[in-house]
């Protein structure tokens, strides 16, 4: 199963992006290009990464050379130019977590998911972050965050359960989506 995010690549979605750009043109005609970073955020939030198509679209709409947009998008670590998994696993490698064995937990995630730190699984369910410094929950060390969920006092033996939990969640989401699509199709036939 290849996890795919909700189908966003629709004419309506791009229209929404164009409306944002249009507002910028109206409100700040002299500094349209300052919208670049907010727009990249908007795209990143929607797709989980910034696709090439979006870079070209934004470059054209703002009048910023495509190469410059690539320069900006690749500079900030927040933006990803590669597709990301449904869930991002961040194992805290801050001092407190590290001394309580966080590296072994990160290694275990990588081993079980068969990816390098920073990589994304081939089914696109997980991305294992390679750069999580202190998450600010040292009392719970070692800490693992999966998107916005905090998993406290994790030991290597927990990794399999955590992975299974989120895999099941992704599968349920995909199934629900399929069922919705089937229901839509039926209502169209009727």
């Amino acid at each position, binding site marked *: 199963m290849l996890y795919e995010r909700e189908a966003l690549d629709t004419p309506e979605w791009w229209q929404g992006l164009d409306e944002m750009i249009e507002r910028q043109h109206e409100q700040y005609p*002299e*500094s349209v*290009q*300052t919208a*670049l*970073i907010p727009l990249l955020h908007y795209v990143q939030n929607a797709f989980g990464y910034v696709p*090439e198509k979006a*870079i*070209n679209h934004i*470059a*054209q709409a703002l*009048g*910023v*050379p*495509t*190469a*410059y*947009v*690539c*320069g*900006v998008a*690749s*500079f900030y*670590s927040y933006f990803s130019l590669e597709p990301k998994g449904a869930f991002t696993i961040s194992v805290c490698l801050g001092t407190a977590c590290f001394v309580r064995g966080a590296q072994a937990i990160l290694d275990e995630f990588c081993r079980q998911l068969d990816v390098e730190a920073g990589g994304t699984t081939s089914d696109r369910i997980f991305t294992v972050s390679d750069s999580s410094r202190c998450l600010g929950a040292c009392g719970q060390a070692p800490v693992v965050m999966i998107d916005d969920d905090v998993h406290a006092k994790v030991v290597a033996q927990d990794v399999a359960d955590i992975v299974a939990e989120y895999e099941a969640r992704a599968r349920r989401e995909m199934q629900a989506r399929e069922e919705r699509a089937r229901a839509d199709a039926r209502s169209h036939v009727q």
Partner: protein
Amino acid sequence: MSDITLTINGFEVTVPEGSTIMEAADEASIHIPRLCYHPNLSIQGSCRVCVVEVEGMPNLVASCCFEAADGMVVRTNTPEVLHLRRDIVELLIDNHPEDCNTCPRDANCELQRLARNMGIRERVFAGERKRHDEDVSSPALIRNPEKCVLCGRCVRACGEVQEAACLSQVNRGYETVVMPAHDASFNETVCIGCGQCAMVCPTAAFVEQDATRDFIDALDDPDTVVVVQTAPAVRAALGEEFGFDPGVAWQGKMFAALRRLGVDGVFDTNFAADLTIMEEAAEFVKRFTEGGTLPLVTSCCPGWIKYAEHFHPEFLEHLSTARSPMSMMGSVIKTAWAENTSTDPKRIYSVAIMPCTAKKFEATREELFLGDLPIIDGVLTTRELAWVLKHMGIDFASLPEEQPDSPLGTATGAAAIFGASGGVTEAALRTAYWMAFDEDLPEDAIAFEQVRGMEGLRFADVPFGEDTLRIAVAHGLGAANRILEGVESGEMEVDFIEVMACPGGCIGGGGQPYAREGEVPLDENRLKLRAQSLYGLDEEAELRCSHHNPDIQKVYEEYFGEPNSEKAHEILHTYYYPRVPPGIRPQEAQV
């Protein structure tokens, strides 16, 4: 603005307020080493090679971007400064391939010069080194990020001078690479092939595609008929490759040298420049008198043509349909000349020596082919010709002066000045006048001083019978954009626009000799001297109007009929088409 006085290395120097420390030091004849700095480009201040000590400052400062102040005390050569500066260059070298001996910029590399002059004799920091593949996809240029020192001069030249903005620094820190959008193959980008990146690059991160090997192989093949043409601007700079100062046109020795390589035809692109003028002037007079699309824009420059196709697709009908001189010559060689000499065009290896890297791309344009047959088989830059001559043991300095072969070598003074910005306009005006009024311009009105010069943008009103021709001349594509924007908005009314992509025109082309030690790439004085040498050829020439060229008259009598005839259109003209990706011009308020 008032003046300020500061002390540099114990010497007082007075400069205008607002000058940087580097400018003040230059004024005081103190050369601070530099790398990312270029006088024609914006200040980046990233390489830190130009650091100096300023009394009262806790750290060293980069002199290229630090403003000088009244009473400031600067030291540029204390042991600490020298040591740190050397460390900075050592770190650059540590992250650079150790293959100077086989590098195309060997002995002409700014990084190498910096290291040598700083006395760097060993690699001190032996750390991890970046690894990247070469991109050889473009017919014009090779991009080799492994040689890149991230000075960003190419990025700025491409964005600020040419406004193509094909390049950007992508990623961050150790991962930073200069690349086009999406790391696309160079032939799939908005790169126009002008080669200004190679011109300003201190190392070999950008170099031209090598055409010398195929040329040498062709020379050796007894079944191949090798013919060579040389662009107007090549003769203005070729001598520099052999240690001569600019200011002299070396065409006599150049023709002699080519003959000694054993080529079968020594032709001159200048002949085709005269032919271009016949076609382009006829096209202009027709459009001007019969009310066609104006302004007419010149089409000699392959960088400009590709730029227009990416960035100004709505403007393409303004371009003259006349092929460039190189392509006209290529077409004539494989049609009229081949017929005349009973040579099978397939056996001809047609070589063009150009001051230009974009011509390598132009030669691959299939719309110019004769069926499947390219009209130009190899394009060598001025630099490459010099390498071949040295390689083949031609002693350039002691060669006699010789003439090119006839008929494809005869040319007028009007053709010689094609190599300098404004030259095409001047040549076209001389012949357009004759075409429109059936008489020549008076001898004292033949030189159009008002279109000559080094300003990026020049305008001239030229009397034309009872009318006035409004002329605009641009070199550097940023300058060209200013004209096109003016025309589009209706603020500017012009009849004729000359555009050359490179600074100064072809004399500053991306294939011309690199800057020598102590010189800045694209130094304006150097360009002026090169232009002077071409204007000198024009002044000395017996014939100074393209339509006076007897061989041009003959080729029309025997082959083409008259300018813009059906046959001329078939062989000497072309068409243009919008290209993807569409170009986006950088604007002033950049992020």
